């Protein structure tokens, strides 16, 4: 059954009043969400772009942020995609417990996530010593930044991937299997192409969230500085005057994936299979 199309037709009676009230309340809410962000961009973007050309510290922080977020997102694609598929396609004991556990990083304060990672993977722990054998240090290194981003943001990708797989009816895979595909081949030839937009959208959201991560990173890694830590530092040193231009640039960096996401969703709506 298809949904009713949205309408721009004039409404009568209670419908019109509800529309006006909803519109007013919605406008206020939109202003609350967008106003502060627009204020930062409006007052700091010009200076931010000027700094972008000359401030090597800002350039390094943005490059590090983007690269770390990209690496964390790639790790999530590799690690979380199979878990998401298993949670959607297989029934096993403790499935709901596993699903709930995987949401924990979304529920705890981000500095707590940083502390938890420090306790689990710090130098004094067995896991930390294991990582150091491979030259990986959780504190004060890019490794720590990537792990903090992965820990805090990957549940967003995982949930998006689960939702994408849930939208692909398992009978597509079943038909592919009866036509000779192994489970992996059916996944690669059918499930992945059919869920790719959702997976990509989840990866974009995760990337954008990783870019803006601060609380968990600052516990593990103050140097090298990612953009959010640089904003924090400049705020402490120079107040709003120093922080706002950098903040404006970071906001614009996060808007790019948001626009990409909207374009993807627009395509998805246009390409949705018709109801039968």
């Amino acid at each position: 059954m298809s949904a009713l199309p949205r309408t721009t037709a004039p409404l009568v009676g209670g419908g019109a009043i509800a529309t006006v009230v909803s519109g007013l309340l919605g406008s206020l809410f939109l202003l609350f969400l967008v106003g502060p962000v627009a204020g930062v961009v409006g007052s700091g973007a010009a200076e931010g772009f000027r700094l972008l050309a000359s401030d090597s510290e800002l350039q390094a922080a943005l490059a590090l942020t983007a690269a770390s977020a990209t690496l964390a997102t790639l790790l999530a694609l590799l690690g979380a995609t199979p878990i998401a598929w298993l949670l959607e396609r297989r029934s096993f004991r403790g499935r709901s417990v596993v699903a709930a556990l995987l949401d924990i990083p979304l529920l705890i304060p981000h500095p707590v996530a940083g502390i938890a990672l420090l306790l689990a993977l710090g130098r004094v722990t067995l896991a930390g010593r294991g990582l150091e054998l491979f030259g990986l240090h959780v504190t004060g290194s890019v490794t720590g930044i990537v792990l903090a981003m992965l820990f805090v943001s990957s549940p967003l990708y995982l949930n998006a991937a689960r939702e994408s797989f849930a939208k692909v009816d398992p009978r597509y895979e079943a038909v592919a299997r009866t036509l000779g595909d192994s489970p992996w081949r059916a996944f690669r030839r059918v499930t992945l192409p059919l869920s790719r937009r959702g997976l990509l959208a989840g990866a974009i959201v995760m990337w954008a969230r990783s870019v803006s991560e601060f609380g968990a990173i600052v516990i593990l890694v103050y140097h090298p500085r990612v953009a959010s830590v640089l904003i924090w530092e400049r705020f402490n040193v120079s107040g709003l005057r120093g922080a706002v231009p950098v903040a404006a640039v970071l906001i614009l960096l996060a808007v790019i994936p948001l626009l990409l996401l909207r374009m993807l969703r627009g395509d998805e709506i246009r390409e949705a299979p018709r109801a039968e």
Partner: protein
Amino acid sequence: MISVEGISAGAGARPLTDVSLVVPQGSYGVVIGPAGAGKTTLLEAIAGIVPLRAGRVHLSGEDVTTWPPEERRLSLVYQHAWLFPHLDVAQNVAYGEAEPGVADAMIERFGLQDVRDHDVRVLSGGERQLVALARALAHRPEVLLLDEPFGALDPRRRAAVRREVRTIYYERRFTVLHVTHDFAEAGALGDTLAVLDGGRLLQQGAPEMVLRKPATPWIAEFVGAENVFAGDARPIRDSSPDWRDGDDLEQLEHAVAFNTGALTLYALGHVLPGPAHAVIRAEEVMLSLGPRTTSVRNQFHGIVSDVTAAGALTRVTVQVTGTPIVAALTTRSAGELDLAPGREVWVAFKAMSVHLC
């Protein structure tokens, strides 16, 4: 060959329970049953898509119970078709193509040349089913499982596609299991017929046998018998049953008097004394304007209460001492008898035509 032994599978509202079924090698088996009978679950269990809780599945003589679907050398066509929406028609048909060129041949056989490059999402329901059939057959399966594959086709095209599938079946002689709720389709296609309801197999045999000797009154009504009467059966000693030479006398062991309402019917069978049902196919009931001078044991005087013509056949309902008996005769015969409501007629049918269950 498809052989399932005591399989139980599926969960929720439509589980299969202890189903056993055999479709001989190279035969066309049909399973009929109402919506929710578990027909699709049966096919999915045979295909290895739905795990079994109990039982074994043999295909082409091999025990495939633990084999994954891709190793069972079968194809499954769903009613919904489940065409891959990211592939065009030709790519769908070629998805599991057994060898180069087979997919193109199937596209031609099913008349899909004009839509071969089309996005499958713009196809009609009937076209989608044709693509699904072509895709399944291009895989060159040893076993073909069909789940109501002609349901979305218009009647003219359905007949043509049925013939084409049947032709390909004769050419390759794979084994088919086709589920449907349409008894006419089952009778037209099947070498063997099984009736499924509520996840249980109720009867299996040749279509003619299921048609003439349904195991239960429910099956009788499901396969289109219009005269199904509840009553009491009583074996009688009768020296003149209306059997013929060559009939299987073991099946005609004794004569039975069957009382339903104010009517007593005579039948032949194994039924024990007590409550039973009598089934008489409308095609077995003869009508005449006067009594017949034959050995037919069941002959009654009645009044026509309804005449319904449907093309070449006309169904006539006759009230016999308060019991409605339906007869099917050619529309031409009905015209010759000038049948109309209120007309007095004689109803006759052989004792052999009364099936007791």
